C-alpha cells in the first residue's frame, strides 16, 4: 500500500482483468489509479468512487458508508457516478476524456478511462505563469468544441478549472473529471468541496442547481483563461458578491485591464463577458461565446465584468433581483415580543391612559422591526449579505478542512515569494544597477518565437489524463510544455502592431501555416519609437549581440539567449533588459521569478520601453495594485500605446481623486525619463 494514500487499493490488486499499478491521485470523491488492462495489455486510468467524507474502506477492500445515516448519500453519489460514466461513454470527442468502461465492485464503482500522458493545465501554469493568447486559444477552443457536445446532451461539467484540463503529449487539451459526483454530495454541508473557489460562479454556491447551465461552465472556463492571463485565479465569486451587494468594494479586476497590452482586446472582452457575475449577463451558449473569443462577434458593450463599476451596476440592478433564493439561514423571529404583556394581567395605572395605550400599541406594532434592528446593530444583517456571509463562513470551514490535507500549491507567477512579500522591502527591492552607457533601443522586445521549442516527450510514468490530484497529487507530475499553436510567446500588444521604425528586421516570423495570433507578438515598441525619434548615439547599440540573443530566444535556445543578453542588460540596453524580463517572467533560460522579471522590465520601461510598461501595468493590476497599474499604463499611454490608454482609463475610475494628482506626477516623471533616454 502506498503510505501516501492509506485509503487506496494496494498495487497488484485485481479488479476483473485490470491490475492496479499505482495511485495517480486522490480527491475528495475518489482515487484514480494507473492500471493495466491485462486483456489488451495496455495502460488505463481507473477512478474509484470513494467519497471520504462519508465512506471508508474496510479490511476486505470493500467500501462502506461511515454511518448508517450516510448510507443513502453514499448510494446516491454512487448512482450519479455510474450515470456520469455512462453519459460520458456516449461521447467520443478528442477533447473529452474517453470513458472505456464502468463497473461495480467492492461495493463501489470504477470508471475506466483511457490513460494519456501529459500534464494538467494547472501544472503548466504553475511552471509558466501565464500563456500567450495563441497558446491559450489553442487550449480553450478545442475544449469548447467538446463542451458544446456535452451541453447539447443536457449535461454540464460543473467543475472546469486548470486541474481538470489535461494537456496531452501532442499538445491537445482534454477535459476530465466531470462534477456529477460532486453534485450528488450537494445535499451535504460540505459545499466547498463541490466548487472550486475562483472558478465556480456564484450560482454554484447554492445547492439548488436549477439556475445552472452552459453559462456555469462558461464562467469556469473564462476563469481558467483569466488564470492563464493574470497568473492567478479570479476573485472568488462569494468575495465578489460582497462587493456586488455593496458591503465592500471588492471587485474583480477585469481581464481587459490585467491583460491589456498582452492579449487582443476582443479576446479579453470575451473573457470578461464570460466572467460576468450574474448568469444572465454571460454568454448563454458555447457557440455565442466562441464567436466572441475568436472576434467574430463583439460582446455586449456594457457587459458586466468589463469594468468594476459596470459590474457593480449590473449586478446591483439586475442580478440580485434575478438571483434565486439563497440558502436559507435561520432568522431570529419574534415569537414573543418582549414588550407584550399577558392579556390576563390587569392594566397598571399609567397604562389606562390613552396616550400610553397608543404608545404600547406602537411598540407592539414595531416589535418585529425592533428585533430586526437589534440584530442589525449586533451585526446580524439578515439580508442577502448576511446570508452570504453565513454561507461563506460555512464554506470557509470546509475549505480549511480541505486545505488541511496536503495539496499541491499552485505557484503564482505574479506574486512574489511569500518570504519576499512579508519581509522588509530591503529584501525585495533590487538595487538599481549602474547604467553605464544607455544604449538607444532599436528593437527592444524579443519578437515572435517563430520556431516553438519542440514539445518534450513525456516520460511514460509521468502524468495521466486522470491524474487529477486535487487534495493529494501523485508524486510525479509530467511537466510537458503546451506546444505553441504557432509559436508566439513574448508579451506584446496589438497596439504594438504598428509600423516599426527599426533598423533590424524581425529575426523570425511565424510560419505561414501558423494560426493567426489575435495579439500579434511580432512587433516591437513602435509607440516609443514614434514618440522619441532615435537619436544618434555615440556608441553603437551592439546590434549583433542583441540580435543574436533574440534569435536564440526565438529559436528556443533560451539559456544561450539569456547568457548573451545579460551583459548587455547590465550595461543598460533596454532591449536586452526586456528580454531578460521576459525570460524571468516565463522561466525560460532563467529562473522564473516575478521579482527579477519586474526588475528588468522596470529598467527597460524607465528607458521608454512601452512593452515593458504594459507588462508592469498588467503585473500590478494582477496584484490588484491599481495605483501602480494606472501609473505604468499611464506611462505607456503617454507614449502612444492605445490599449494601455484604454486600460488606464478603466483603472481611472477606481482611483481616488488625490491619487490622480500623485499618479500623474509619477507618469510625467516616467515619461520624461523615457524620453530623455
Amino acid at each position, binding site marked *: 500500500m502506498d503510505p501516501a494514500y492509506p485509503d487506496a487499493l494496494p498495487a497488484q490488486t485485481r479488479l476483473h482483468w485490470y491490475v492496479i499499478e499505482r495511485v495517480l491521485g486522490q480527491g475528495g470523491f475518489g482515487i484514480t489509479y494507473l492500471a493495466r488492462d491485462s486483456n489488451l495489455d495496455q495502460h488505463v486510468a481507473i477512478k474509484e468512487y470513494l467519497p471520504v467524507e462519508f465512506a471508508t474502506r474496510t479490511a476486505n477492500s470493500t467500501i462502506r458508508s461511515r454511518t448508517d445515516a450516510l448510507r443513502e448519500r453514499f448510494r446516491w453519489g454512487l448512482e450519479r457516478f455510474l450515470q456520469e460514466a455512462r453519459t460520458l461513454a456516449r461521447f467520443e470527442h478528442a477533447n473529452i476524456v474517453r470513458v472505456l468502461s464502468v463497473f461495480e465492485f467492492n461495493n463501489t464503482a470504477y470508471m475506466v478511462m483511457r490513460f494519456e500522458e501529459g500534464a494538467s493545465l494547472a501544472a503548466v501554469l504553475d511552471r509558466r505563469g501565464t500563456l500567450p493568447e495563441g497558446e491559450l486559444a489553442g487550449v480553450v477552443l478545442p475544449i469548447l468544441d467538446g463542451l458544446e457536445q456535452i451541453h447539447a446532451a443536457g449535461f454540464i461539467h460543473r467543475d472546469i478549472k486548470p486541474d481538470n484540463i489535461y494537456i496531452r503529449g501532442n499538445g491537445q487539451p482534454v477535459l476530465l473529471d466531470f462534477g456529477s459526483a460532486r453534485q450528488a454530495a450537494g445535499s451535504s454541508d460540505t459545499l466547498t468541496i463541490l466548487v472550486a473557489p475562483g472558478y465556480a460562479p456564484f450560482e454554484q454556491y447554492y445547492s439548488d442547481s436549477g439556475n445552472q447551465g452552459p453559462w456555469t461552465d462558461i464562467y469556469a472556463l473564462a476563469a481558467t483563461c483569466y488564470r492563464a492571463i493574470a497568473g492567478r485565479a479570479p476573485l472568488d465569486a462569494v468575495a465578489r458578491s*460582497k462587493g456586488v451587494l*455593496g*458591503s*465592500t*468594494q*471588492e471587485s474583480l479586476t477585469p481581464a481587459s485591464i490585467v491583460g491589456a497590452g498582452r492579449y487582443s482586446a476582443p479576446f479579453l472582452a470575451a473573457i470578461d463577458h464570460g466572467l460576468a457575475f450574474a448568469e444572465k449577463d454571460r454568454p448563454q451558449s458555447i457557440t455565442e461565446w466562441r464567436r466572441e473569443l475568436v472576434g467574430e462577434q463583439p460582446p455586449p458593450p456594457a457587459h458586466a465584468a468589463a469594468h468594476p463599476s459596470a459590474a457593480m451596476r449590473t449586478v446591483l440592478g439586475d442580478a440580485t433581483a434575478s438571483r434565486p433564493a439563497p440558502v436559507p439561514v435561520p432568522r431570529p423571529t419574534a415569537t414573543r415580543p418582549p*414588550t407584550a404583556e399577558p392579556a390576563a394581567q390587569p392594566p397598571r395605572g*399609567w397604562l389606562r391612559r390613552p396616550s400610553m395605550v397608543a*404608545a404600547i400599541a*406602537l*411598540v407592539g406594532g*414595531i*416589535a418585529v*422591526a*425592533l*428585533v*430586526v*434592528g*437589534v*440584530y*442589525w*446593530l*449586533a*451585526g446580524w444583517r439578515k*439580508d442577502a*449579505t*448576511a446570508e452570504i*456571509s453565513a454561507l461563506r463562513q460555512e464554506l470557509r470551514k470546509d475549505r480549511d478542512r480541505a486545505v488541511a490535507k496536503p495539496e499541491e500549491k499552485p505557484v503564482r507567477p505574479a506574486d512574489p515569494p511569500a518570504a519576499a*512579500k*512579508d519581509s*522588509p*522591502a*530591503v529584501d*525585495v*527591492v*533590487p538595487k*538599481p544597477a549602474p547604467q553605464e552607457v544607455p544604449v538607444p533601443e532599436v528593437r527592444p522586445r524579443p519578437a515572435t518565437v517563430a520556431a516553438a521549442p519542440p514539445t518534450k516527450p513525456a516520460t511514460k510514468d509521468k502524468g495521466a489524463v486522470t491524474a487529477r490530484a486535487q487534495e493529494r497529487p501523485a508524486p510525479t507530475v509530467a511537466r510537458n510544455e503546451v506546444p505553441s499553436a504557432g509559436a508566439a510567446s513574448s508579451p506584446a500588444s496589438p497596439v504594438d502592431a504598428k509600423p516599426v521604425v527599426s533598423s533590424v528586421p524581425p529575426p523570425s516570423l511565424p510560419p505561414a501555416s501558423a494560426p493567426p495570433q489575435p495579439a500579434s507578438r511580432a512587433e516591437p515598441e513602435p509607440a516609443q519609437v514614434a514618440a522619441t525619434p532615435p537619436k544618434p548615439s555615440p556608441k553603437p547599440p551592439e546590434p549583433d549581440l542583441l540580435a543574436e540573443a533574440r534569435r536564440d530566444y526565438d529559436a528556443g535556445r533560451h539559456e544561450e539567449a539569456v547568457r548573451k543578453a545579460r551583459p548587455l542588460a547590465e550595461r543598460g540596453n533596454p532591449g536586452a533588459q526586456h528580454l531578460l524580463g521576459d525570460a524571468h517572467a516565463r522561466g525560460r533560460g532563467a529562473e522564473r521569478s516575478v521579482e527579477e522579471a*519586474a526588475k528588468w522590465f*522596470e*529598467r527597460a*520601461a*524607465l528607458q521608454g520601453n512601452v512593452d515593458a510598461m504594459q507588462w*508592469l501595468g498588467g503585473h*500590478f493590476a494582477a*496584484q490588484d*495594485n491599481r*495605483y*501602480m497599474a494606472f*501609473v*505604468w499604463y499611464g506611462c505607456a499611454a503617454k507614449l502612444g500605446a492605445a490599449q494601455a490608454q484604454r486600460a488606464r482609463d478603466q483603472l481611472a475610475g477606481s482611483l*481616488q*481623486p*488625490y*491619487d490622480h494628482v*500623485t499618479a500623474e*506626477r*509619477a507618469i510625467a*516623471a*516616467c515619461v520624461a*525619463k523615457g524620453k530623455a533616454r
Partner: protein
Amino acid sequence: MCMHRAGIALVAVLALAGCVTQETRRDAVEEINRAFRAEYEAVLGKRGTRVVAAPHAEVFDATRAMLVRLGLTVRQQSPGLGLLTADALAPRPLSREEWERASVADLPKARELLARHVGALANLFTFEPEGLSIVINANVLETPGGTEVAFAMRMREVDAPKSGMPRREYPPPTAVAIGIDKLWDELDRELRSRGMASPRR
C-alpha cells in the same frame, strides 16, 4: 414615568434602525466619504508633499526603511519610478491612543452627517479599526531641487464590517493628519541618521 418614556423612545429608535435600508446606509456612508474626502485632500494638499535635498535612490531607500520601521509591510515597489505601496492593519501606523484621539475629534461630525440619513442610529457609529488596513502610497520622484516625496493614506477593508455598513473610503481626517505627520517625523529621523537633510515643504 420618565424611565418608561425613555424606554419607549429607545425602542422606537431601535425599531426604526431596523427599518434602515441598505440604500440609506450607503447614502449615509457616501456622505461621510464626501466630507472626509474634502478634508483628506486638504490635509494632503497641505502636508502631503515635501522635498528632500538628496539623491533619489537614497531618499527612496530611506522612505522604504521608514515604512518598515513603522510596522508597515511594503507590498509593491518600483524603485526606478519611485513608487511604494505599504500597508498594515489599522490603526497602524497610528497607535491605539492616536486613533482614539482622532475618533474623539472626528466622530461628532461623522455622526452628525450620518444622522441626516439614519437618525439616532448615528450615535452608535464608531471608527472601528478592526477589519481595516491602512494603505500608504509613497511617491518618491526626482525633481530639479532634489527628491520630492508625497504620501497618501487610505483605508482598505480586510474583513466585512460588523455593522454591515458599506465601506468608508477615507480614514478620519484627524487620523490622516496624525498619520502623515508621523510619516514625516519618521522620515526625518531616518534621513538624519543617514546624514541627509530634513524634508522641507
